[in-house]
């Protein structure tokens, strides 16, 4: 076809040209890039046609399309590999896997690794792992504690990454990485687990056990809080509620499970659980919460050093501030505890935070000794 006589409207209506603009067909991209090189005098027309076409289709660009399609491809590949991985887990004898299966496992591991790298590059909430330069290596049979006001990045012996939020403890068993990868968490942590179908990764908290193969998710299990949560960003997890029935729940990406906390005791399998078991029946599964302004996720904004609240009570927010800033907060008025706020703070000090909250709904605060803040109605 003689494209040299084409005007912008003719380019726009040419299917091959459309494929080039959004990058949907590799051969069209190659063809048009070559053609443009050879026909420099048409570059104004071509650029105009491209701009107009991309505008008309709703301002999608080659970059956004490529990123979305790549993400889809990786998720689909993971999905395909889970399909074939299923018989593997139900059939424990794989001391000598057939060569083809070995290859397949290798391929999926590579895919998962690429997914992980891409994830690092494309998802904002992954960045903290890169920012935290002092990444501790956690050894077998050891405990890592982050104090109030402190956040830590840890690498586990299997290569999985954990980011510990303030006031949290993680304990890793001595036999970690043998038959399974098990650890205990009190507090909040963000996990990026390396895929290993043979060794399930299990996290024990006081209200639930979370079993995964390889995924990205956040677990929040502070003993002082009213509820515990597991939020899934990618992959799949199996949550076992610690009650009589040991109910199993599967989460999908962008879902979270919320469980009422049964007691303040650390996650030890104790006999007292039975009489409180009914409380854990009331679990709830909801979607994750997007920040209204920039559509980042509230559940994991802490990993980016951002404090985010979404329609939370002042009481809940105060508990978070106490851990975040290593302070104590006391209320002199019960009603103030019930005030609700939605806010995101990026690297602000405690006074800036309180002052911003005051603008939304007024309260009075006094900073007393020993970093104790007293909040009253007026």
């Amino acid at each position: 076809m003689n494209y040299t006589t084409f005007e912008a409207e003719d380019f726009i209506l040419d299917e091959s040209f459309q494929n080039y603009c959004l990058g949907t067909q590799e051969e069209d991209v190659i063809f048009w890039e070559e053609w443009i090189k050879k026909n420099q005098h048409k570059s104004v027309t071509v650029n105009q046609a491209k701009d107009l076409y991309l505008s008309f289709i709703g301002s999608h660009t080659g970059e956004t399309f490529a990123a979305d399609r790549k993400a889809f491809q990786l998720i689909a590949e993971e999905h395909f590999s889970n399909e074939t991985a299923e018989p593997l887990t139900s059939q424990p004898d794989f001391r000598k896997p057939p060569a083809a299966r070995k290859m397949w496992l290798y391929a999926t591991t590579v895919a998962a690794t690429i997914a992980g790298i891409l994830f690092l590059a494309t998802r904002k909430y992954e960045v903290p792992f890169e920012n935290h330069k002092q990444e501790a290596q956690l050894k077998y049979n050891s405990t890592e504690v982050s104090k109030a006001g402190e956040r830590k990045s840890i690498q586990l012996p299997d290569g999985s990454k954990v980011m510990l939020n303030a006031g949290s403890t993680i304990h890793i068993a001595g036999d970690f990485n043998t038959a399974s990868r098990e650890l205990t968490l009190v507090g909040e942590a963000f996990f990026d687990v390396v895929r290993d179908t043979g060794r399930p990764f299990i996290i024990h908290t006081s209200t639930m056990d979370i079993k995964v193969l390889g995924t990205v998710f956040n677990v929040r299990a502070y003993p002082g809080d009213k509820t515990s949560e597991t939020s899934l960003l990618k992959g799949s997890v199996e949550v076992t509620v610690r009650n009589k029935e040991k109910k199993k729940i599967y989460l999908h990406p962008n879902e979270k499970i919320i469980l009422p906390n049964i007691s303040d005791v650390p996650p030890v399998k104790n006999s007292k659980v039975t009489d409180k078991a009914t409380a854990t029946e009331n679990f709830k599964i909801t979607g994750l919460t997007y920040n209204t302004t920039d559509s980042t996720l509230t559940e994991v904004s802490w990993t980016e050093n951002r404090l985010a609240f979404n329609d939370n009570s002042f009481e809940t927010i105060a508990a978070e501030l106490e851990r975040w800033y290593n302070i104590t907060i006391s209320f002199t008025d019960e009603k103030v505890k019930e005030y609700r706020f939605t806010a995101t703070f990026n690297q602000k000090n405690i006074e800036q935070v309180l002052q911003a909250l005051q603008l939304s709904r007024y309260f009075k605060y006094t900073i007393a000794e020993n970093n104790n803040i007293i909040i009253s109605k007026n």
Partner: protein
Amino acid sequence: MLMPAKTSHIQSWIQLQKGNKQALLEIYTQHYIGLMNYGIKLTGRRDMTRDCITQILLRLWDNRSKLPCIENVRSYLLTSLRRELIAEIKMEGNRSLKNRLFGESIQTTEAPYEEYIVQLQHNRELKEKLMNAIGQLTQREKELLKLKFFEDLDYDEIAAKCNITKRTAYNIIHQALKSLRLILVSTPPGNLIPDYALLGYLFFFFLPQ
């Protein structure tokens, strides 16, 4: 060139039924614009739309042996996506989010196509020029541009929807693009519309209609 895109859509669908993994990616590519625009316009949420499209396609894969033989792949997918998005919105327990969602969807669905695409355009100069140029098209022309590019329909579907022939559909769209080009060329570069006028124009479109 009046190439019916549908044939390739049906071919990929049949391949999917047969269990061809590559066909799933082809379907994603073929319906990307149509599905994304539909979902974003409905919910105002790009990420949610993208994730829901992924979900419905993976479900198609899981049910590939039970899939019906269909004539219009796009409308089948649009219906699935709509259901998925509604389910997703219902699942979001958060009240403020719901309010925001419905608030936005009202705003975006009420904005006419030309306003909507201008709003999405980040390039300021092009934005101003486009606003001026599209304003000079007829209602019919704007409608057909929307069906062709934003909804990503083929000429068969446009012809059926508007009760015209394929040739007429093509001609109207071609003529609309030509008029646009001529207006854009005759528009001097630089600030055509002063800033305050731009703001006023935008404001006008946001008024409830």
